[in-house]
């Protein structure tokens, strides 16, 4: 039996509902329909009354979750697309993210954001917006890149006492498969060495991990050994693992599918240069999406985001220095 990334997300939710009576799911079309992407398929039947269709009201959806969390529940909110969470932005960053600090009452909500680009989805169904959430104190921002992490990190998200922005990549939903669900996992907050190497470190996350691995394979044909660090969580960010990798390789390329300005890649470079400046023997570089909205046409889209090819090119550039 093999499972997709999407099925892992469904399984994690099923398990959370099964194991913890405080868990419920709230979102548009999540009930009988099973969600726009089928991430809650059959859950309304398996867990009657606990998988609730919401009106098209992202602001109130998040507010509702915060209230339920205050009362001891562990709501999971599904945004139909990450892009639409922006309508609920205020409740996330000002209500959910400030509650614990202001009142000492934790706010254990999980907001699931189907995010990232897929071909033909255009400017409003493709955004990678982890950085704007990570900018705010009070939030945990997770970006699983594998089927196993999608499962274990979503379970951990629901168990955590803080608001978690769970960024699940739509491009990985169906593409990525695993043989089985994991029994154990790295905890949230720890990055993972996705591929070992000694010539250059690529620090990246989510769908870009796979582009980076692809690029690393290509470069291995030329004798280069590229280390790929899968961040897993962009907030907190496991600087130690990245710095340790850079200590081995001396070179750092940060890759993100999001826009460059103030993104995860900028945050990594700031940290690594502050903490591991002496380890770098070339300027750390970043590769991001282009500075425009995400285009609709597949040709434009493929050029807008980093790909194995452009990652390999950027890596080569850096290796040459």
């Amino acid at each position, binding site marked *: 039996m093999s499972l997709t990334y999407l099925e892992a997300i469904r399984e994690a939710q099923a398990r959370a509902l099964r194991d913890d009576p405080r868990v419920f799911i709230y979102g548009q079309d999540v009930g009988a*329909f099973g969600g726009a992407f089928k991430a809650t398929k059959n859950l309304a039947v398996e867990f009657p009354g606990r998988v609730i269709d919401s*009106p*098209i009201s992202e602001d109130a959806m998040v507010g509702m979750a915060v209230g339920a969390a205050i009362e001891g529940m562990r709501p999971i909110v599904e945004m139909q697309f990450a892009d639409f969470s922006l309508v609920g932005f205020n409740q996330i960053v000002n209500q959910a993210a400030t509650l614990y600090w202001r009142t000492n009452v934790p706010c254990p909500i999980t907001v699931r954001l189907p995010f990232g680009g897929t071909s033909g989805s255009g400017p409003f169904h493709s955004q990678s917006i982890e950085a704007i959430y990570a900018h705010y104190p009070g939030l945990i921002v997770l970006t699983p890149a594998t089927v196993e992490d999608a499962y274990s990190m979503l379970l951990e998200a629901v168990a955590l006492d803080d608001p978690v922005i769970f960024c699940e990549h739509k491009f990985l939903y169906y593409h990525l498969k695993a043989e089985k669900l994991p029994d154990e996992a790295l905890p949230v907050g720890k990055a993972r060495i996705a591929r070992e190497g000694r010539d250059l470190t690529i620090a990246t996350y989510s769908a870009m991990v796979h582009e980076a691995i692809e690029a690393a394979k290509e470069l291995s044909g030329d004798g280069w050994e590229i280390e790929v660090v899968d961040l897993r969580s962009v907030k907190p960010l496991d600087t130690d693992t990245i710095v340790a990798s850079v200590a081995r390789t001396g070179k750092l390329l940060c890759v993100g599918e999001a826009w460059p300005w103030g993104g995860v890649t900028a945050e990594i470079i700031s940290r690594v240069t502050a903490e591991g400046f002496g380890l770098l023997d070339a300027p750390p*570089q970043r590769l991001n999406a282009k500075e425009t909205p995400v285009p609709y046409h597949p040709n*434009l889209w493929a050029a807008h985001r980093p790909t194995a090819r452009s990652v390999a090119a950027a890596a080569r550039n850096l290796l040459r220095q």
Partner: protein
Amino acid sequence: MLQTAFDTEPSLDAKEERDIYLSAFRFMLLARVLDDKLAALYRAGKIHGGVFLGRGQEALSTAVGISLREGDVFAPLIRDAAGRLAFGESVLDSVRTHMGSPHGPMRGRDGNVHRGRPREGLLPMISHLGAMISVVNGILLARRFQKKSGTVGAACIGEGATSTGAFHEALNQAAVEKLPLVLVIADNQYAYSTPKSRQFACDSLARKAPGYGVGVQTVDGTDLSECLKAAGAAISRARTGGGPQLIVANLLRLCGHGEHDVADYVDPKLMNSSLGRDCVKAAEEFLARRHWLDASQAAGLREDIVHEIEAAVAQAQREPAPDPFAEEWRAIASEHLCEGQPEHRRI
């Protein structure tokens, strides 16, 4: 858009009336056939991304588009192929945008229903529901500043989108400013899979109007006559200073949410009810009863329409795809402030 419409002429003679109905029917059929074609292209894998159809909503949508005049503003949503055509959008704009052609108005940057020509009064929707209404308000306010009177702005929306804060803020804003906004709610019973009982708790959305202080009409959205009259009246009232007008139309979405959706959640009772009536068929029957369009004329009309659409598709398919190397990749108009990609700067 028509020169003569229900909103301008209080009493139309028989010929004018017939012309309006024939014209409206033509747009309805054009939209239906175009939708069918887009669905076929989608199934054949020729369109990337989603395809969203207006099946069952052509009467309402056409009535809005056709009742607007040149200079008016129109903010259609995903089910308004018919209204767009009636307002003056070309078939080619639609096909090109679905195909991602660089010659379309969105140049491959945005796709499918996300298209328009803002300078010509046709607003290109963003996906966030409810967000276009206040933009229409802004255009209408600007015209007031510019002392251009007599224009109207129409915005279409589904019943599900009335749950958004954006809908509320914008309708209220229009009411406070007494703007000539016509807001058309197509209550098609579902928002994606969600039945309206999970969306609001009043018996009809028309109940909302007094709370905003705006005019309202409720119509059978499957009936072209009712739609034409209501749209004409609302637009006319808005045009003559009556402030915002709401239209609530009852109908049923006769397709999936998008073409990926088989919509097996739709209650069969609704399909068999009067809400489930196919407005295109009903309009054709109406025209036949009035002896304005007989079967062979209808067949001829359909044939013309099929040709027009095939031609547009053929043209768009011949066009090159957008070239990423020719793209400017610049999101701001101020060229001198554009930094380019950080990674493309010197090292």
